[in-house]
């Protein structure tokens, strides 16, 4: 197996009231990397996190931490002392911020000065030194979240588990915390497992991704693999591949294939047998738009497209195009105005053959 894995899960099964809620044949947490567990609500992300943290006892299967099996009360409590868990809700005690952050250190019977040093350091990391004397019950949501993170980081864990670290925070608070957390994880080199449901958070924080649904792992890989080469329609949809087209391979030579999609031909890279039914997946950011006039386009796939819908999404617009097949593209609001794009206008949409990700489709 992988000698570098910080944690390894084998054939893990967890049942609750007769229902199998987790069924994980294999999962690795790589050292000094950030693994995101993503999936829709109810996929079992939190449950998996709690099981990995030794807080729920699996019905079957093995967890290895740093190469050693975690299968007894003693080994579970030993592992618990080396990892920290941050829950979705801050779960602060009704006392001062300082005492909350010191809690885990107190359990370890450290001396007062050792505790003070770690607490101060952790408070500073999260920029909440000024809150130390405040009562935890008077904090805002973002502040409480920071305290809860500081409490976990104060223990200098080898591995930290975070369940929906940014949920229920307003956008600026969320933004600030995400940036800080990214820095802290980079600096401390603490291995992290984060349950997330937002793909932007995943892209910004994680190096590895595991996609879950209904208690099972659908796909595991590096962030780029998951986002660019989803191996099923479910994952493609979940990671935000807006364009997923049903097609059939028409020809394939030397790794270049032509897929017929609703009467149009799309060029893609890869090996496939002719006649194979496939999905062509395309991320909206990989579609380039230009006005008709321009001719200097290196991309292999060039289509005339009618703008059938413009959806405003903050700083950019999402365009739904009709090229004979539906295609989704992003464009900044300024470019949209520069190119004079309005509903009903015809534009040229292009994308590289390498941007098309082909997934095999069941018959």
């Amino acid at each position, binding site marked *: 197996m992988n000698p570098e894995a910080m944690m390894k899960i084998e054939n893990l099964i967890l049942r609750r009231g007769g229902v199998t809620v987790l069924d994980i044949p294999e999962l690795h947490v790589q050292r000094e990397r950030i693994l995101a567990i993503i999936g829709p609500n109810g996929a079992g992300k939190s449950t998996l996190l709690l099981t990995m943290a030794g807080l729920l006892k699996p019905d079957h299967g093995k967890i290895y931490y740093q190469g050693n099996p975690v299968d007894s009360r003693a080994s579970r409590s030993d592992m*618990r002392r080396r990892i920290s868990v941050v829950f979705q809700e801050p779960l602060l005690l009704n006392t001062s911020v300082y005492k909350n952050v010191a809690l*885990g250190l107190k359990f370890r019977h450290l001396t007062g000065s050792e505790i003070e040093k770690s607490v101060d350091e952790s408070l500073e990391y999260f920029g909440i030194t000024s809150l130390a004397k405040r009562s935890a019950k*008077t904090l805002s949501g973002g502040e409480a979240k920071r305290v809860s993170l500081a409490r976990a980081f104060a223990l200098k864990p080898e591995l930290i588990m975070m369940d929906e670290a940014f949920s229920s925070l307003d956008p600026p608070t969320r933004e600030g915390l995400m940036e800080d957390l990214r820095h802290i994880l980079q600096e401390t080199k603490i291995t992290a497992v984060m349950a997330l449901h937002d793909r932007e958070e995943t892209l910004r924080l994680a190096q590895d991704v595991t996609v879950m649904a209904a208690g099972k792992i659908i796909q595991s890989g590096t962030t780029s693999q998951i986002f660019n080469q989803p191996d099923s329609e479910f994952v493609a949809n979940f990671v935000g591949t807006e364009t997923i087209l049903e097609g059939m391979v028409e020809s394939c030579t030397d790794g270049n294939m032509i897929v017929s999609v609703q009467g149009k031909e799309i060029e893609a890279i890869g090996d496939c047998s002719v006649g194979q039914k496939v999905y062509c997946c395309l991320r909206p950011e990989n579609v380039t738009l230009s006005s008709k006039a321009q001719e200097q386009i290196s991309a292999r796939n060039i289509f005339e497209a009618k703008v059938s819908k413009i959806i405003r999404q903050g700083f950019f617009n999402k365009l739904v195009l009709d090229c004979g097949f539906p295609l989704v593209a992003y464009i900044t609001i300024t470019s949209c105005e520069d190119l004079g794009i309005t509903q009903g206008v015809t534009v040229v949409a292009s994308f590289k053959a390498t941007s098309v990700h082909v997934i095999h489709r069941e018959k």
Partner: protein
Amino acid sequence: MDLIVQGIIKAFELIISFDPEVIGITWLSLKISGTATFISLFIGVSIGTAVALNNFYGKRFVISLINTGMGLPPVVVGLFVTMMIWRSGPLGFLEILYTPYAMIIAQAIIATPIVMGISLAAIQNLPPNLRLQILSLGASRLQMVWVLIKEARLPLLAAVMAGFGGVISEIGASIMVGGNIKGYSRVLTTATVMETGKGNFDIAIALGIILLLVAFAINALLTQIQQRQHPR
């Protein structure tokens, strides 16, 4: 009307002059009920917490039993304790019938389910993931339980108030197992009943006022502590 006015005036005289007998009765009441509440706090909080934190077959039934116990009729407790410590009863060898010890036992039996029921609810009302969060910070099971009890301190104070309030104003069991012996097992409630029966309304009113004051003072003190922890 005259009777009542005279009674109230006499009552205040007794209180202000620190009548030794009245003071003695008050002090004994505080000692017996305080000790009983203290004992019930230990048993009630530990069993209440244990029931709240563990899942076992018949848990709901046990909780219903505890909740029923919160309304235990003192006379039934008095009867039970009397039988147990009756000379020929199973605990007769202790020879504690008609002593303050018997009263403490009876009052502790009355207060324990009250404290237990409130502690159980208090621990159950903590966020369900709090336990796991505390464990994940490296707490041993004992450390975890202690943190939870501290976190539930406000409702637990309410448990103390309810328990103490219940036993200091209770009469049935106290008179049955204590015997209302002058200067030995005579407490505020039993004395009030006796003086009323004798037609000594002045003393009865004085004792009644003291009982109210004691209950008020204890609760005011605990409320003060509770509210200080809870600024909003």
